[in-house]
């Protein structure tokens, strides 16, 4: 077994780390307070090629695969969860549906501008009445000549405020439901009938925009169907399988950064006559944080390797998402505790990491849904 990262991955990591140190970390607090990524930073990220990391160079991507992408997200996760989430929603679910199930024409039409970051993508499945129960979506798509007419709304859509190209899931046959009745569409934000709601005000990842999307008698050409009519649910699940994995990557980065910050703090904070890092209580917390981080890092990159080698990762990516998000919550909780009072203050990044972490157990499929996916796989196979 070769557990080393390739030259490409190491160089991508170094480059991203430098970019995060110089360009993202100094702005992380501002991004949180102003609830926006500054346009100048988005422009620099475009120049660095961050918007097309896993995709083939044939479509304008960087060609670094799922592993290279997890490496980049890990480094981003050290600096700003908001930035990591904007990038991840664009790449791993927004673009991914088109990349996995789009026709050659659709890929050539949409991916180059998405990979360059000139256009931003989003993934629109969730509705007010359909969160975990994604099959209960009610946005409708009725055929009309050469088009479909879409009516309905989506809620809590990451990048909903800035997306130009959105993968939208709508019901084409109510009777069939999720099995054959849902279709995926490529929607462009300038299509008549498309509108967006105001940005939600959130606990964390405040720099990433989350909002409702509305479709009112919106005409979408038949050429914009992703994959096959009625197979939208398959496309959604396939896309989420890959998308969940990279969430783990960002969690790894946050865990490592939190450990580093905690070590630094505990090495300087003197109480009872010595730096608190000499106290066993603190040492054990750090050891447990390291163990969690090693576990998450190992499973993320193993699953990414499987993905890059064409192996099915449904169960593994559900495990990664579930475990990484829960591990990060444990790590960030300990980081707050090690920092004590200062860990609660906005002068210091720890409290931002704490607020930013919580969403990971909820979005991209709640951890309850992940447990359903894993359990269903186990019971179906009758073994591990």
């Amino acid at each position, binding site marked *: 077994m070769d557990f080393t990262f*390739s*030259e*490409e991955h*190491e*160089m*991508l990591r*170094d*480059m991203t780390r*430098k*970019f995060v140190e*110089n360009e993202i970390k100094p702005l992380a607090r501002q991004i949180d307070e102003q609830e926006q990524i500054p346009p100048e930073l988005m422009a620099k990220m475009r*120049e*660095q*090629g*961050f918007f097309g*990391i896993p995709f083939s160079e044939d479509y304008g991507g*960087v*060609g*670094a695969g799922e592993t290279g992408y997890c490496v*980049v997200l890990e480094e981003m996760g050290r600096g700003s969860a908001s930035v990591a989430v904007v990038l991840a929603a664009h790449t791993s679910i927004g673009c991914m549906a088109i990349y996995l199930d789009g026709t050659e024409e659709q890929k050539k039409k949409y991916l180059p501008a998405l990979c360059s970051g000139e256009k931003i993508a989003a993934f629109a499945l969730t509705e007010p009445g359909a969160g975990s129960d994604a099959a209960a979506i009610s946005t409708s798509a009725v055929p009309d000549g050469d088009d479909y007419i879409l009516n309905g709304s989506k809620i809590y859509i990451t990048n909903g405020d800035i997306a130009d190209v959105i993968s939208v899931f709508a019901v084409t046959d109510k009777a069939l439901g999720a099995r054959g009745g849902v279709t995926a569409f490529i929607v462009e934000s300038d299509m008549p009938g498309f509108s967006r709601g105001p940005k939600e005000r959130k606990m964390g990842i405040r720099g990433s925009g989350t909002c409702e999307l509305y479709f009112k008698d919106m005409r979408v050409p038949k050429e914009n169907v992703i994959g096959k009519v009625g197979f939208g649910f398959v496309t959604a699940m396939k896309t989420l399988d890959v998308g969940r994995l990279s969430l783990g990557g960002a969690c790894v980065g946050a865990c490592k950064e939190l450990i580093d910050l905690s070590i630094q703090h505990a090495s300087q904070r003197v109480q009872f006559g010595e730096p608190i890092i000499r106290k066993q209580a603190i040492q054990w917390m750090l050891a447990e944080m390291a163990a969690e981080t090693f576990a998450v890092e190992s499973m993320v990159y193993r699953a990414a390797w499987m993905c890059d080698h064409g192996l099915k990762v449904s169960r593994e990516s559900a495990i990664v998402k579930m475990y990484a998000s829960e591990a990060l919550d444990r790590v960030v909780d300990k980081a707050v505790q090690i920092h004590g009072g200062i860990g609660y203050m906005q002068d210091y990044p720890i409290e931002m990491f704490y607020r930013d972490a919580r969403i990971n157990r909820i979005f991209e499929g709640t951890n309850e849904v992940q447990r359903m996916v894993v359990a269903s796989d186990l019971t179906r196979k009758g073994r591990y």
Partner: protein
Amino acid sequence: MRIAICIKPVPDLSTAYVSKSRVELVEQGKEVANPADENAVELALSLRQEGDELIAFTVGADTAADALRRALAMGVERAHLVDDPVAQGGDGLADANVLAAAIKHAGPFDLVVCGARSVVHDAGQVAGRLAEALGMAHATRVTSATVNGGKVTIERAGSLGAAELPLPAVLAVEPGCNTPRLPNAMAVMKAARKPLEHVTVSDLGLAAEEVGEAGAAVRLRLMQLPES
């Protein structure tokens, strides 16, 4: 113009820590480009005009390839690695012999740039020795340069001030004098896949006594921090 850039592979000191009077490295075996050499790459790139060719040269083991690839990612066209085991373990004199031979072998060049000092020994030997071996003009602690006709005009750090040299010339670049550009993801991937040109000591027509440990005038016996 043809510009040669000499890059010394050095340990990655960004994650080094001190333990029991020794400097310990977090990641063993990882080599990066000497920081001043990255400043030299940046200076060379800032001078580049249409049609110019930039080639990087390194003496080192295969871990030195990492250091070379950074230069490729920044925009250098080609990289020559003398990874012949005979050439390893040299000091400034031995390395300068090898680099000068490698540059002549790939020459002729209008300009040779390298960092003025390395983070390993801080000896600052190579640039001057290269200039002698190549028969070129030489200046050190260079912070910026412009080329005009057959001359290069330079600014230097400290009290040395400005100067003008005829081409061909060797410029020893002052550490930290510029901000080495950050390559983007596409450049990184391209550089990671680009083949390096591997050069042996016999390719260069050098004798074993001139290179590596055998060719060194200085042998490092011990390096440690003072007892505190």
